[in-house]
């Protein structure tokens, strides 16, 4: 190793505090050892923890939707937990359309080498909304925007909840929802017509930076979102 670098062998966790990790082998399907954080969560937020599952060695904690932010903040700040790294925010919708949509957070504690999955259930027929964890993890910004774009789940408290991957005027809905057909709702020619009708240069303007100024040109849906008190701009 060249002298520019400090040689690091054991990864980020402090030596001695945790056992050296090894490749998981013969992971049991169920009844594996749960992550100790699950117990800690139970002790701390007794009523907000609905269920703890261990599947394939990974611990899933189902928590109350209203208290997600509180729980995540505790996991992040508490010195015995230190979940400082947010891997992923996503959602799962099942083929059984009556099953609630699950929002999934994958958290890692780098100092303790732990991995925890938090889930919360969003029953169908109610507005899909969960608290945003952007306050705790800045990395949640795009992950939550993507989740909103693909599932239509609103992350309350996110500073700039706009579509990310699809364009703002996209009319067909939320692509990863199970009721969204694989090839989209419109015919191919209609899809092409709609997108070609957009002027690619019309958006290269100052208005783009501050959505409010371009309010009149926005789609109805986006206007409604803005009206409902969401913050705008970047």
């Amino acid at each position, binding site marked *: 190793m060249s002298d520019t670098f400090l040689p690091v062998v054991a990864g980020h966790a402090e030596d001695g505090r945790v056992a050296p990790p090894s490749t998981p082998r013969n992971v049991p399907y169920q009844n594996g050892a749960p992550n100790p954080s699950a117990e800690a969560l139970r002790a701390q937020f007794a009523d907000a923890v609905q269920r703890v599952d261990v599947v394939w060695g990974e611990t899933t904690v189902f928590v109350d939707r209203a208290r997600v932010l509180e729980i995540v903040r505790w996991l992040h700040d508490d010195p015995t937990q230190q979940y400082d790294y947010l891997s992923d925010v996503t959602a799962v919708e099942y083929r059984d359309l009556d099953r609630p949509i699950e929002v999934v957070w994958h958290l890692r504690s780098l100092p303790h080498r732990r991995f925890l999955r938090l889930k919360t259930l969003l029953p169908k027929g109610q507005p899909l909304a969960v608290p945003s964890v952007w306050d705790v993890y800045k990395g949640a910004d795009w992950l939550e925007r993507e989740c909103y774009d693909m599932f239509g789940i609103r992350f309350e408290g996110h500073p700039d909840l706009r579509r990310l991957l699809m364009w703002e005027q996209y009319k067909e809905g939320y692509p990863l929802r199970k009721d969204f057909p694989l090839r989209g709702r419109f015919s191919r020619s209609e899809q*092409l017509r709609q997108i070609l009708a957009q002027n690619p240069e019309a958006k290269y303007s100052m208005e783009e930076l501050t959505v409010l100024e371009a309010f009149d040109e926005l789609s109805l849906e986006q206007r409604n979102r803005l009206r409902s008190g969401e913050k705008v701009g970047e």
Partner: protein
Amino acid sequence: MGLDTRRVETGVDVSPSSSESWVTTRLDFLVNWGRANSLWPMPFGTACCAIEFMATAASKFDLARFGMERMSFSPRQADVLICAGRVPFKLAPVIRRIWQQMPQPKWCISMGACASSGGMFDNYAVVQGIDTIIPVDVYVPGCPPRPEGLMYGIMMLQEKVKKERMADKSLRNEMEPDPQSQLYIPPSLIDEVSEPFGNAVHQTRSGL
């Protein structure tokens, strides 16, 4: 207007009694020879095929041997649009605009299955073939095409350029999309060519 299918007749009288003189055909030859051997590509690389395009341009395959020494990253100075990679709907107006910015004479190579037909991405997000947006001269199959494949496509384009006749004004017709819908081929045709076929028809069911 607009929504006609493209005209296919060449518009050139090639019979021996044609009034085209020896001079014009020789001039054609000279001009085409020059054009064919100094095509400036505009690499519109989006996805994996662009990596193979880079490999084609890099040391081992050396695209410069074909007169393509200069990549033209500005459409205004480009001759050939090489569309390498998938074109999702969100990119459709962009590639249309780039094509419109290129000056005549211009050609287009569609590199890879995705650019030519949507490839394995028969879903809500991907344009099923860029020929529904802009006219294409050469399709290079493959996923991704090997560099040799792309070169073969380029050589085919050179052949095509060498056969062009200056008297044939239709070659230089600008694509005129229908002002209302911005499509340049009829919607029914787009729907028809975008239909899945073969095994793909059955792969829309989820869960089994």
